[in-house]
């Protein structure tokens, strides 16, 4: 196996999880570098999980200041105004995360993620964008794809009690154990741009409605220049207008995207903590899989909705048209 062995301290601390994924996977984890931007409830859960799992480093980006709202589902921020006054969300979360596992290097990177050069992303093995705008998600994904090394790219978004994860592992090889045999597998992931541009018509009807609803909200926030979650019931007419246009453009009926779901997504601006725990848990599991090269990864969207309780995987790529 590549690299040094785990230290005695690491073996003792990670004992239980090594029994799940093995020492080699743990070694790869301890050498991985993760960039995370946009830290609200679900991302806080994700960060906790990967810091506990023992990745090499976590770099946090979120220059927003702590507000009442950011306290909601984010247990990394102590509710003491004296402690968080004048500090950014990333700085406060960094302090809490360091405490979870002294063996993981947690640091803060200031500035705007979308303004970063392609080279910036080369330092990382995994990039996670939480609650990003359509433009940011597209731009960062393209930069990651330009690099010679493969950077695993994820986006995550939670609204009301619903969550979405997007995964781009480009061309990804992994081993899968089938009975006693090890099988080499390969998956080809579309980019974010490609995935959200897939025509709706050929997509199977049983596909999670959230996929379409999230695209509508994305376009709404982009057109109106809103930040994530900056919306209310007053915006419903505009949102429905956008939905109508998108459905027409894709030649599908408007019932494709239920109005009630859109209404939930724009009014439920406060995250539901149990949904954060669930989506943040699934995302961390996927990142651990990708870093360790063990197990079949999620391709390429995941949806959770506490209302029906289902956590489903959707493969949205151009395979429908071909």
């Amino acid at each position: 196996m590549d690299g040094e062995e785990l230290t005695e301290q690491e073996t003792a601390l990670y004992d239980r999880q090594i029994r799940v994924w093995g020492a080699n996977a743990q070694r790869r984890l301890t050498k991985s570098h993760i960039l995370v931007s946009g830290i609200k409830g679900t991302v806080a859960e994700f960060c906790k999980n990967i810091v506990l799992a023992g990745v090499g480093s976590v770099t946090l980006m979120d220059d927003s200041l702590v507000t009442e709202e950011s306290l909601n589902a984010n247990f990394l921020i102590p509710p003491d105004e004296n402690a968080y006054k004048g500090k950014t969300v990333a700085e406060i979360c960094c302090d809490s995360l360091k405490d979870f596992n002294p063996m993981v290097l947690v640091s803060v990177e200031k500035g705007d993620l979308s303004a970063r050069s392609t080279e910036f992303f080369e330092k990382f093995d995994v990039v996670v964008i939480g609650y990003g705008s359509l433009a940011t998600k597209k731009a960062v994904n393209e930069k990651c794809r330009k690099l010679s090394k493969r950077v695993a790219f994820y986006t995550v978004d939670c609204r009301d009690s619903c969550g979405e994860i997007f995964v781009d592992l480009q061309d990804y090889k992994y081993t899968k154990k089938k009975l006693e045999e090890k099988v080499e597998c390969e998956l080809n992931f579309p980019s974010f741009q490609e995935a959200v541009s897939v025509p709706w018509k050929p997509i199977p009807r049983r596909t999670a409605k959230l996929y379409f609803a999230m695209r509508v909200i994305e376009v709404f926030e982009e057109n109106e220049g809103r930040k994530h979650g900056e919306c209310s019931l007053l915006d419903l007419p505009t949102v429905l207008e956008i939905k109508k246009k998108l459905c027409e453009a894709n030649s599908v009926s408007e019932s494709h995207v239920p109005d009630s779901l859109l209404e939930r997504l724009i009014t439920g601006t406060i995250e539901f903590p149990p949904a954060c725990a669930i989506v943040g848990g699934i995302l961390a599991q996927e990142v651990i899989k990708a870093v360790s090269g063990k197990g079949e990864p999620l391709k390429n969207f995941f949806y959770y909705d506490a209302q029906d309780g289902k956590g489903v995987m959707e493969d949205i790529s151009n395979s429908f048209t071909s």
Partner: protein
Amino acid sequence: MDPQQQSAIQGAKVLMVGAGGIGCELLKTLALSGFHDIHIIDMDTIEVSNLNRQFLFRRSHVGQSKAKVARDAVLRFRPHINIRSYHANVKNPEFDVDFFKQFDVVLNGLDNLDARRHVNRLCLAADVPLVESGTTGFLGQVTVHVKGKTECYECQTKPTPKTYPVCTITSTPTKFVHCIVWAKDLLFAKLFGDKNQDNDLNVRAKKEASSSKETEDVFERAEDEDIEQYGRKIYDHVFGYNIEAALSNEETWKNRTRPRPIYSKEVLPESLTQKNGSTQNCSATDVDDSTVSAMPLLGLKNPQELWGLTQNSLVFIEALKLFFAKRKKEIGHLTFDKDDQLAVEFVTAAANIRAESFGIPLHSLFEAKGIAGNIVHAVATTNAIVAGLIVIEAIKVLKKDEDKYRMTYCLEHPSRKMLLMPVEPFEPNPSCYVCSKTPLVLEINTQKSKLRDLVDKIVKAKLGMNLPLIMHGASLLYEVGDDLDDIMVANYNANLEKFLSELPSPVINGSTLTVEDLQQELSCKINVKHREEFDEEKEPEGMVLSGWTQSPPTKGESASTSKNESDVDVTESSSGPEIASKKRRLSETEPKNHKRETENVEGEDDDYLMEIEDDDLTEIENPMTVSKKKKRVA
């Protein structure tokens, strides 16, 4: 969040049982979700190996109460809520039905079957809904149990702790786990544990009356006896002499591979002392017990490395020397503990030498520790997901949203695209002895079985009762409690040693016994059926309890079992026949989780079974079969 939900959450008083892997996540998610009044019970203290997932704990907390530290940690980010912690066993009498009645819902994050059953009964008796959970690796499940509406936790039989026939352990091991059980429960216990305990370590060499006195003396160390010489004597006795003695029993080896006796002089140099005079040279003062270790003295660093026979033999002798040199005071009252490094080293080495002798593949210390300690395979992510699911179900229960109750399974590989699979809960099983009053049937030889056998093997082990009381008609045969006078205790003790048919009120074919647990407020009837003979292999306990069956299968279920095979994504290392089995624990697909033994046993002393501690048992049902049996709650 809708106002109805908000008021349900804010008005709720919640009991959490367990502050471990699931518990830490659950307490955090409850607090974030707006719960104001949370009580939490856990008897455990914090250990280093908890820190990778029980994120409310830090290294500085090791040794402290989990419940208390978890409470303090959550109060730091939600200072104004009420959390009450109890550093205690949930089976303690103070947690009685009245205690349970004060809560609106009980949430379990437990790690053992025994406590789960106990909480299930108290929830039924107090009529408080229960949300139950469990995880193993990437697999998890959350279930809802509401009296009269959904099945209770015990409506379907649960796998009982794994047991191995004594004979397999003492004479004919075929798997590494048998060697581990031998090293841990017999050899380690004999050398370092309570000398007065019964122990089957010595092979009864064919009725050689003479040797019994001698062999006892082998384990006694004379005051001035050189430790290394003593260690070699033990080595030669258990790995050499005992194997030879067993070999002399030709009958045993007719259809088996004969083991090879191993003597220390074949594998170790004459004297080890010059090579590494560790024990003699080290100062024996100021050592922390848990850090004494033989490995560094022998230049062994990696716990995942496989040691050969010589290395195992060196570790065996060195660990034994260290026990006598540095932990002498504890000898005589040690029990095996998976967190005791020296004990793990000794057991690993002894099990490996025995495995070598029997031609069984050797294992690393890391693997041996997992088997010996029955260690759960646990990751933070699954616990976090399961905790989120528990809170979602708890909210539905508080809102009395009956149509929406779900059991949810976390899968490692998606099934029908789902990683989180909700399933409608089952109805209560009408023949469940816990939540309905269906009598049980016990087949037993009433002339050859003592009341003690009934109490130990049925009432405690099978029915999971804590403080049992047994009645036959109006006659009280047995009870446990602090308030009994000496005459009653003497009476009950005398009854324990009597055959059922010779009790003051004789229990014979057709008798009906009433068995109660006053703390659990559980009472059940047992109809006794006398039977002369029992199959030693299939019914090694010499009695058979039946009557509480699994939920009646719905149409087409048996036909679907073979189809399941193609439906289920084959999990790493699972094998065909297991998938086809109708109902099973998913965790059993992992090779390290040793399965219950069904192998044939020969020999004369198989009439009782040895139990393996099973503290970390987590049952996970097969979601595929469960989803196929889907039933609507009436």
